[in-house]
């Protein structure tokens, strides 16, 4: 497994390069956006981990470019994951908020890589979801958290208000593609996928 870790702090790069290499495999580091562009153009990576405030680049465009190549992007942010997810300032595959631990980053990478390599599909009512591509078929991109929520709902698992940001984002994306499906809270049943005419 090859990981590209890009952040504007050399101490962080040095420390987490060692951790990620121990846990996952080769980890290449980049200090700015120009290096990232150069590396993703010439080399292959399974996952890219990017700091949101990487110098010398427009984060949004860079992330879109990497995702268009089919590589999942984990974005390191300052602040709330769910707020970022709701406002979707950057279309990441997953978000990880500073300060994180080695276990935290490991969990996110494993979740993303497991989905990315699953080649699986999900059907939520009339909506087809390409799990490994992290997107609704012919529709917008999804985050790993949103796919987790959908998987949990479809397998009868529990979804709580703590997933509220993912639920709101999913409902917005379903509306965008004109799908009748929405995730709603049903008294005594909890959250569930319902069609609008139900």
């Amino acid at each position: 497994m090859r990981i590209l870790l890009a952040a504007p702090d050399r101490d962080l790069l040095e420390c987490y390069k060692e951790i990620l290499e121990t846990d996952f495999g080769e980890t290449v580091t980049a200090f700015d956006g120009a290096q990232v562009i150069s590396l993703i153009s010439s080399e292959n990576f399974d996952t890219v981990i990017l700091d949101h405030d990487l110098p010398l680049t427009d984060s949004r465009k860079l992330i879109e470019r990497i995702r268009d190549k089919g590589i999942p992007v984990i974005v390191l942010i300052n602040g709330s994951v769910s707020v970022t997810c709701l406002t979707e300032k950057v279309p990441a595959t997953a978000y990880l908020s500073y300060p994180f631990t080695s276990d935290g980053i490991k969990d996110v990478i494993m979740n993303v890589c497991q989905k990315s390599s699953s080649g699986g599909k999900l059907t939520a009512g009339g909506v087809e979801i390409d799990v490994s591509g992290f997107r609704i078929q012919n529709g917008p991109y999804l985050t790993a958290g949103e796919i987790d929520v959908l998987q949990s709902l479809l397998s009868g698992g529990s979804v709580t208000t703590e997933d509220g940001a993912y639920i709101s984002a999913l409902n917005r994306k379903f509306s965008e593609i004109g799908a009748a499906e929405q995730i709603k809270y049903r008294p005594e049943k909890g959250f569930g996928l319902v069609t609008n005419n139900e």
Partner: protein
Amino acid sequence: MNKAEKKFRLYAILVIFVLLTSLLAVINAVNFTMASQDADEITQMIASRQGSFDHKNKRSVDMQPQIPEKDFRMGPMGPSSPETDSSVRYFTFAFSEDGKDAKVVAFHLSAVTEDEAMEWARELINEETGWTRGTYRYRVYKDQGMTYVTVIDQGRELIASYRILIISAIGEALCLLIGWFVLLAIARKIYAPIEEADRKQKNFIKGANKEFRLPITIINGNTELAERKYGPDDQTRSTRRQLNKLNALVNKLETIGIFENENVTPSQIPLSEYLNAALDRDVEKFASCGIELNYDIAPDVNISADPEAMVRVIDELIENALKFSMTKASFTLKSDGGRTVIEAQNDTNLPDGAADQIFDRFTRLENAKGEENAGLGLAYVKDVVTAHNGRVSAAVAGGTFTLRIAL
């Protein structure tokens, strides 16, 4: 413009209004009293001259001691002048003791005929002094078995008083208007540095919060690496404990006073469902703390709000109830007159009035177990509610803490 500035302007204009109104009320009251006194002095002057200016000889009045002419106030502070004789509009009738016979002593009034004036005077025989028919001042006095009734017209003098009253009211309104605009400029000047300081404080907290996050992540990583290489020891465990504390503080700092209108990303949220789900989730937590939890949530209450912020507000309310309840806590949600009202109530060890500063950042209160909070949760609740144009209030009274949010 912030709320403090608005409040300052409102209170300042209120103080100006009260001061101006009091001042003008005193001026007008004194003016009217002086007009009455002037009228009394003139009627007394007439009485001292046998009921008419036409009588040159002064004479005594049995009800009033004779007043020497030199004692009547002259000039701008008094009613008397060399023109008083010809300028006063009055009449005097003298009545016999039984009131049947009457004679005109003086008649210098155009508004009534002599007969009407006589009937009018007869009505006043048993009075002493006062106002009659709006603008006329009268005086009744006795002399040598006769009862004299003198009535003078004070219409012109009273109109002058009313004019002063109207001019005062218009002047006050103008002063208030000018004062409002002056206050607008002054308040801006006073509050601009305060707003700037507040903005800098928020920016500092926001920046410091960001600046803390990266080093904590790196220390976390380096501690992990040290433990991997040399195994965990007391030092790495202590470092991790301190890092956990810093983590918690940083996460709390994120909620501090930086939630403003521009941060609201509204969407329709099912508030009833959110509250029910959150309380259902924490029923056992309350039970394990020995707190009886009751909630009465009106169904199908939907509001337009920022979902993330509202979820966090609900969590803060629950956390607060968990931390400060002694034995019982309750939550209600209702729609009240177009407003959505969330009320959280619990018994508490806090003294009355302890909630006065509860929404201020870093206001730390101690619960029954002696634990302190960070003093940020309810400050965040207030920020979010205010950003949604809602109102939040809290009170401690008789061992009951009540927090009310109206959205």
